[in-house]
């Protein structure tokens, strides 16, 4: 049964120091703005964050990094035009980076949720990102052994949730949400709206409620509005 916290702050209030936090989104699409802002307001530190990127501008995930709350980030693409906060921390050795090819990142999270102990992927074989990793030749091709990623908490954004926690997403906002939801001990979701049980067609549910622990309603905000609100 899902919990329905009153607001994003209540949803993340029990987050512990040293947690691994999976954060959905690909750029702005699917980013759980409200939950990330709430994460910034709570006091958990020494976090490991898993996200495709490493924050943009001065708000949200970037602000969390800037506040010194993140020990390590696991991502595929930290370098962006406005990733100055990460850039500074990385150059001064104040944050650990585990760089993972994007598909390997998604697959490691899926493996975490699906109980797979490890898998061999061709991605990255023969490149510096395979350095130190076990490599095996299967049917004449080189594969790299990769291990699952588990989160203590996943923070994701979906479009609608029903009272069972079943989720549907919007367009490319879906991205990492469905796999992250499966791979965390506690999955916290912000949605545009909660609908009655029975009002989502069982054929179109993307994330079944079994993967969802808490749902909060949070209005969609664009990055620009977010920047304005925090400036």
């Amino acid at each position, binding site marked *: 049964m899902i919990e329905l916290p009153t607001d994003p702050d209540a949803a993340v209030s029990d987050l512990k120091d040293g947690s691994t936090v999976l954060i959905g989104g690909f750029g*702005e699409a699917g980013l759980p703005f409200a939950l990330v802002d709430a994460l910034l307001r709570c006091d958990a530190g020494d976090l490991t964050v898993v996200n495709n990127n490493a924050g943009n501008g001065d708000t949200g995930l970037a602000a969390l990094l800037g506040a010194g709350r993140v020990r390590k980030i696991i991502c595929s693409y930290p370098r962006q035009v406005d990733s100055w906060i*990460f850039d500074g921390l990385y150059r001064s050795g104040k944050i650990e980076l585990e760089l993972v090819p994007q598909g390997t990142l998604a*697959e490691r*999270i899926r493996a975490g949720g699906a109980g797979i102990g490890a898998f061999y992927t061709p991605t990255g074989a023969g*490149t510096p*990102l395979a350095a130190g990793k076990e490599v095996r030749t299967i049917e004449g091709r080189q594969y790299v052994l990769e291990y699952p990623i588990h989160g203590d908490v996943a923070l994701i954004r979906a479009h609608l949730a029903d009272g069972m926690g079943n989720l549907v997403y919007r367009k490319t906002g879906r991205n990492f949400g469905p796999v992250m939801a499966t791979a965390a001990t506690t999955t916290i979701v912000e949605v545009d709206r909660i609908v009655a049980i029975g009002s989502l067609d069982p054929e179109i549910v993307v994330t079944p409620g079994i993967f969802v622990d808490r749902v909060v309603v949070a209005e969609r905000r664009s990055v620009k509005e977010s920047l304005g609100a925090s400036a």
Partner: protein
Amino acid sequence: MSAYLTRSEMAQMVARDIPAGSYVNLGIGQPTLVSDYLTADQHVVLHTENGMLGMGPQAEGDEVDPDLVNAGKIAVTELPGAAYFHHADSFAIMRGGHLDICVMGAFQVSAGGDLANWHTGEPGAIPAVGGAMDLAAGAKEVFVMMTLFTKDGTPKLVPKCTYPLTGVGCVSRVYTERAVFHLTPDGISVKETFGTSIDELAESLDVAVVA
């Protein structure tokens, strides 16, 4: 032709060479231009790594939806017959060999088809790989679009990459402003030249090229 190709003309060449009905991923940056030259007759379906097949042109005005972006995080549109899926499924499409062609930029391509396009390897450079290695490992064919020389005149089509690799032996074609190269087990074959000749190319490169 009498002049080197512009970026748009290179994109046009790539578009022309994509077989009808192909499923294609266009890398961020310059390869995105290719979509401008695909014709409706080609029935090419575009994949974007962040979870969509059937991606349409860049969104304009009211079409802009922050939940609908391409791999470069630019707002795009959806075409009839599109489908959305999550990231693990999207990269299963890539890794599983289901894309006919991907088009990427490059710092260097080796004669053997090795690709270097994610990291300069310079001290202090912040590494970022995104989906490049997945595309290199997974697409049936990897086409590269790049200038043939760096700004200081060093060839980018090389015997062996000096930059960190993205993928091994994956590139099949290289589209440049001066020529289109097909990389085959028998060597590098020059398919077309623009404002230059095969002899001039052979002289300026450290790799063997044939007609």
